[in-house]
């Protein structure tokens, strides 16, 4: 019929398709590489290099003599941790196996790091990096993602293959961290490790007097591959969050620090009656709440999420202890012992409520206690608080769950080398340079800053801060703000996690909470295959939503506790059995990592 008309339409459509194809081709051009086969099958377990003391340095230079100032003014001892400065035992955790300077002719490494500060233009101003450059001969250049847009910047760089030499604490790699290696973005470190270019790191993994086993396991994946630099808290601060009580109220009311659940009930009731408030500040699924702190749920030997019950992974909310915890919370809520606004409080509101003098007991991270004490005392000069351990629900109970930091900190604290180092021929140098951060000398520099500039060792074996700006009353800046000028915080190095100015309450809290064990807390460094990861994520999104919702409903009484069994079976219908299977498999593989 109307063939000629159709012809024009066909031509038009063809032209449009061609145009679209041209645009697609032009724009999507960067992606032309083949998908790389996962080399998992062929990779051997990372073998530890031979004793470094018997060899020459990696670049052929002779090793310095062992001694305090034998390594370009720095200490050198590749096999033994030594006390050069009369400092306390607990500050000694590594050897000094790096021959300085790392390079004779200066090179420059580009580091991608999220950084913003009201008093510094950039990290190049830091005394730490200046001293590091002076010692190692390696210059560092920094690129910063736009503030708050680290994830987008990271993804765009991957898409455009526009890489720095090192990613410092990047966002999660799409598809899992190992996928970064498979995609030839991240550089695998195992070959360098086996060639002996990481002697400090290796010593730490094998010889650390307290934590070698844990460090060994947590620095590699199930196949024994090393591909990230971790933050290792060799001077640990295990718990950073837990329960607190208003000690001035305890005094007023003639109460003791509560130790059992019944103590708590009694204390809260007394506070409610005498102080006319709902005394317990509770947050369930977000910060410092049950999900992070195991607040009271550990008293019933259950958890809000996965727990490692003597080697077996269990999802906390399916345990009978979870029901007992719900019953307790429900009872307390009904009696008016829990802040009635607790479901809707936002982060700032939660802190404000506590500082406002409305709360007698709360969950909190030790970092928040400073501002709350300051604000609280502005209203009530007697405001004081102290950390308290998790209560027991029966005599003789051993608590096994509390907030915990592993020695090797989690995924958000890693640094990754990129393949650009190989392209630029700087890979060996970068590995040796980064390994220096894991020596005693390098770790100290990162933890405290340059000696004599920011801190100094005292005759009694302790240290003190001497950075002048810290004591400038007029400026009134706090330690946190000034700190980037002389030390690093969330980077990968041998870290003293207590090397900060902390309120006495904070230091005390670490000690108090640390008296209870965290045996049942899931390890931070489980590894999953991309398929497992995707499957698990798919199941857990729904499980978590349902659990979050139902838990609150049980607590406030919108859902009768008789429905608990129905709740558990719904969770199971959502695929919990499969998720548990995946978790257990991963945990087994984790503990199978050995030496």
């Amino acid at each position, binding site marked *: 019929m109307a063939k000629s008309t159709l012809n024009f339409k066909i031509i038009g459509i063809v032209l449009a398709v061609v145009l679209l194809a041209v645009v697609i081709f032009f724009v999507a051009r960067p*992606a032309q590489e083949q998908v790389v086969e996962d080399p998992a099958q062929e990779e051997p377990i990372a073998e530890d290099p031979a004793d470094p003391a018997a060899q020459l340095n990696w670049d052929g230079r002779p090793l310095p003599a062992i001694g305090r100032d034998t390594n370009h003014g720095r200490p050198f001892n590749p096999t033994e941790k030594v006390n050069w400065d009369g400092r306390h035992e607990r500050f000694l955790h590594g050897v000094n196996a790096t021959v300085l300077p790392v390079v004779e002719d200066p090179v420059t490494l580009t580091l991608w790091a999220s950084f913003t500060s009201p008093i510094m233009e950039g990290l190049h101003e830091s005394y730490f990096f200046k001293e590091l450059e002076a010692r190692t001969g390696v210059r560092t250049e920094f690129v910063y993602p736009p503030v708050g847009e680290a994830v987008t910047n990271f993804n765009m760089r991957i898409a455009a293959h526009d890489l720095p030499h090192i990613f410092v604490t990047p966002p999660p790699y799409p598809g899992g961290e190992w996928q970064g290696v498979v995609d030839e973005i991240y550089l695998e470190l195992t070959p360098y490790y086996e060639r002996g270019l990481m002697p400090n790191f290796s010593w730490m993994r094998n010889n650390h007097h307290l934590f070698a086993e844990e460090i060994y396991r947590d620095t590699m994946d199930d196949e024994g591959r090393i591909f990230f630099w971790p933050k290792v808290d060799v001077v640990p601060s295990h718990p950073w969050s837990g329960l607190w009580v208003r000690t001035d109220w305890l005094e007023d009311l003639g109460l003791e620090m509560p130790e059992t659940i019944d103590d708590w009930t009694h204390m809260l009731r007394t506070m409610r009656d005498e102080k006319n408030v709902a005394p317990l500040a509770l947050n369930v699924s977000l910060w410092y709440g049950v999900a992070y702190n195991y607040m009271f749920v550990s008293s019933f030997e259950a958890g809000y999420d996965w727990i490692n019950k003597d080697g077996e992974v269990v999802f906390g909310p399916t345990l009978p202890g979870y029901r007992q915890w719900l019953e307790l919370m429900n009872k307390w809520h009904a009696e008016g012992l829990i802040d009635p606004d607790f479901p809707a409080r936002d982060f700032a509101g939660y802190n404000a409520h506590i500082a406002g003098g409305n709360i007698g007991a709360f969950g909190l991270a030790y970092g928040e206690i400073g501002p709350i004490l300051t604000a609280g005392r502005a209203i009530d000069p007697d405001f004081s608080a102290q950390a308290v351990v998790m209560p027991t629900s029966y005599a003789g109970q051993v608590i096994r769950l509390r907030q915990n930091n592993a020695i090797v900190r989690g995924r958000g604290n890693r640094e990754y080398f990129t393949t650009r180092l190989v392209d630029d021929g700087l890979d060996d140098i970068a590995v040796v340079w980064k390994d220096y951060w894991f020596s005693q000398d390098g770790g100290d520099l990162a933890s405290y800053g340059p000696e004599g500039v920011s801190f100094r060792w005292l005759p009694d074996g302790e240290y003190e801060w001497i950075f002048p700006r810290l004591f400038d009353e007029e400026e009134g800046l706090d330690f946190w703000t000034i700190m980037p000028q002389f030390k690093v915080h969330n980077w990968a190095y041998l870290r003293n996690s207590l090397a900060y100015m902390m309120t006495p309450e904070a230091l005390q809290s670490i000690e108090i909470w640390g008296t209870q064990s965290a045996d049942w807390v899931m390890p931070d460094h489980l590894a999953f295959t991309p398929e497992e990861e995707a499957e698990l*994520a798919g199941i857990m*999104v729904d499980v978590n939503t349902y659990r979050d919702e139902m838990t609150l409903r049980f607590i406030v009484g919108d859902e009768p506790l008789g429905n608990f069994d129905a709740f558990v079976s719904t969770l199971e219908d959502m695929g919990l059995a499969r998720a548990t299977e995946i978790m257990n498999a991963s945990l087994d593989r984790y503990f199978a990592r050995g030496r």
Partner: protein
Amino acid sequence: MVLLNNKSNKYQLQATSAQLSESWFKKISIDWKKYWPLYMMVLPAVLFYLVWLYGPMWGSLIAFQDFSIRHGFLGSPFVGLENFIKFFESPFAFRVVRNTVMINFWNLVFGFTLPIIFALLLNEIRNRYFKRVVQTITYMPYFIAVIVVAGLLVNFTSSDGIFADITVFFGGAPTNLLARPELFRTIFVGSEIWQFMGWNSIIFLAALAAVNTELYEAAIIDGASKLKQIYHVTIPGIMPTIIILLILQVGSIMNLGFEKIILLYNPLTFETGDVISSFVFRRGIENAEFGFSAAVGLFNSAVNFAMVIIANRISAVLTETSLW
């Protein structure tokens, strides 16, 4: 009213194919000769859309891929409807879609009509100075960051907040309003109105200003009261604007940003407050599941588009005003 859509002439079906193609080609040439200045004038806009909106459009196909940002579009495998299935498999898929639609529906009923009524009322204010002051003040909330508005709201709805005080005054018990799922939509839509009514009324004020004053004069001469004037002159005068905006709003039925939702909801109000965007957000876009979020986006787009087509058709038939 204005007819905005072009329909081709239906009466040439009897012509032969040769005549048909000849006449079409001829029509095009005549059209071009007559209107080429207009086509030149619209060219920059067309180029803009071609480059910036059609150029990247291949990205919507990511919804059908297991997309790897490293390998890009050409290097990622196609997985058909897998991403969509992943979304709909969730027991909460229906709930979040329903919540999205319900909140947007109520926002349409109240958030769309109130600015119109407000504009009409404001238009009746005689005092020019008062009018301008009112107008300036009522659009200010638009500029307050969401996080501040949410903070205020969380504050007002708490058991010691102003709404609780009012409840107590009338003899009720003070509770936290954001903990009640049955109130979430009311609070959310209410806050949208509070923030946007003034700003949204601007376009209607402009439409009101465009109504020919001679028409009012004619109506007054005819003896029409204020109410009759509004009914016979004002409302018909701004009707095309209202209808077009209504169609556009209907076409946003699936669009609900997560920012404010996340700040106002909590697990107790998931039942009514968890929407598509917040659900997808909790899944962790940080995990960069590009294929999955593209699939959800494409699903939203498809529903929106379908709604717009329906609304457009209805409007074309009923009112002769339509989008295309």
